[in-house]
């Protein structure tokens, strides 16, 4: 199963990763090799098998939907790269 540089470019866009042309070729080659390794799974007939997402029988763990104070608002805000009046500032969505 080979993946093209065009597909890698698309994946990088989807994942918000900016990659160069040279990297696209490198990743296409490496990811293709990994996908090749996956083809062994076709030996297994899994048509009737329920997918497993949880390794033991734990289901729908819920808690009361109640707000509480975390007590570390200032510490959290202090981590933001840019603040404006206690709000996190980001670059404009559209160029000016």
């Amino acid at each position, binding site marked *: 199963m080979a993946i093209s540089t065009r597909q890698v470019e698309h994946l990088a866009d989807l994942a918000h990763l900016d990659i160069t042309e040279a990297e696209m070729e490198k990743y296409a080659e490496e990811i293709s090799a990994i996908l090749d390794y996956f083809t062994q*799974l076709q030996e297994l007939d899994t048509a009737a098998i329920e997918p497993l997402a949880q390794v033991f029988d734990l289901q729908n763990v819920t*808690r009361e939907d109640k707000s509480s104070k975390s007590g570390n608002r200032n510490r959290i805000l202090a*981590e933001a790269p840019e603040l404006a009046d206690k709000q996190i500032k980001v670059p404009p969505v559209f160029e000016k």
Partner: protein
Amino acid sequence: MKLNTLTIHEAHEGLKRGDFAATDLTRACFETIHEKEKELNAFITLTEDAAFEAAEKVDKKLRSDKKINLLEGIPFGVKDNILVQGVKATAGSKILSTYVATYNATVVDKLKKQGAIILGKTNMDEFAMGSSGETSFYGPTKNPVDIDRVPGGSSSGSTVAVAANETIFAIGSDTGGSVRQPASFCGVVGFKPTYGRVSRHGLMAMASSFDQVGMLTKDVLDAAHVFEAIAGQDKMDSTTVKKKTAIVKNIKSDLRGLRVGVPKEYFIKGMDEDVEKLVRQTIEKIKSAGATIVDISLPRAKYALAIYYILMPAEVSANLARFDGVRYGHRAEAGNLLEMYMKTRREGFGDEVRRRIMLGTYVLSSGYCDAYYKKGQQVRRLIKEDFDRAFEKVDCVISPTAPTTAFRLGEKFGDPLTMYLADVFTISANVAGLPAISIPAGTVNGLPVGVQFMARHFDEQTLFNAAAGAEALLQ
């Protein structure tokens, strides 16, 4: 006797008897750290002042003849993807190079409350993605047995810190073998509890259906002590369950009557012959000590590596979406928001992380999701069923921890798929959520080799019985 070489239980006895003070113990660790760090690079951040402050408190308590907890005054290292409030947490990545943790991980809270002393944050593969310690933005960690070789990964720094006696113990994380495989390469004990045993609150999520907090220690008893200290239900991690965790007082190292399964699929072609020989000798010793050796088959276990490299990157691609330069960490200069995201992630993430994010994005994308992600989850069930069936006949399973001894720095770095094979024996415990431990079995050409035990879900007791019994035979 150098204090930093002690185990937890030895150090505790020494503190209780008044042979030395907690500050002496902490000082012995830092002296070794300052002597060896230039060469080993096991730590990213040291918290020396806070450590001595905490040690002073323990000494004050000892001077007034108050009783101390087992872990009180015992120094430890924390893998850098586990949060310690007020201390930098980079996870080995550039994208978090400026990030200071705003709260404590539950495991850190528990260990601190019991009086254990944090020495610093240990080096690791970036976001725990790597099997050699080489993907860290902060430079590779070296194997103390041979500094031209890798220590394994991803808990590279935690493992090396223990192996080089820079600390008494360390905590790490294990998503596909990240405490056991380096433990095998460096000659220490690495233990991954059952999925659901230990809270991951404050552990940076990599692949949430596999991630578990683990520990690196100098012997099996220490691993059990740390396990008891950190296990338990936590409302901040809904996968944790309420279960009895008293292990130490029930450890029974007598191997007579223990049924130990040897899966034929774990002795594969391409495995180092001398490693295989050593593991087989260990199995013989266990047999001589009275254990019943049972040949078993886990027919679908050979697919564990393939499905792991589908499911794990899928979860990685979702979990790492949060690193976008908005709320914390590195932010790139850019004219608009989308460009900021793209540039931040380009500058902040290393090669292996980007590769896994793209692979994960691919296996989840429309048109491929059924062929990869769903197939992976179906095979995951088959592998779990293989183990369920095996555990009807045996109490635990023994296998090599890794197919080789520690390889040379750079040897596999350029070939991701070959690197992934280093985890071929450890991954299935995460795929099935089982508890697993690696203990030193001896050396091949001077390099450590580990053997791995796996047991039923939540049956850490049997796992520790087997490991303690085997450890006694191997010493």
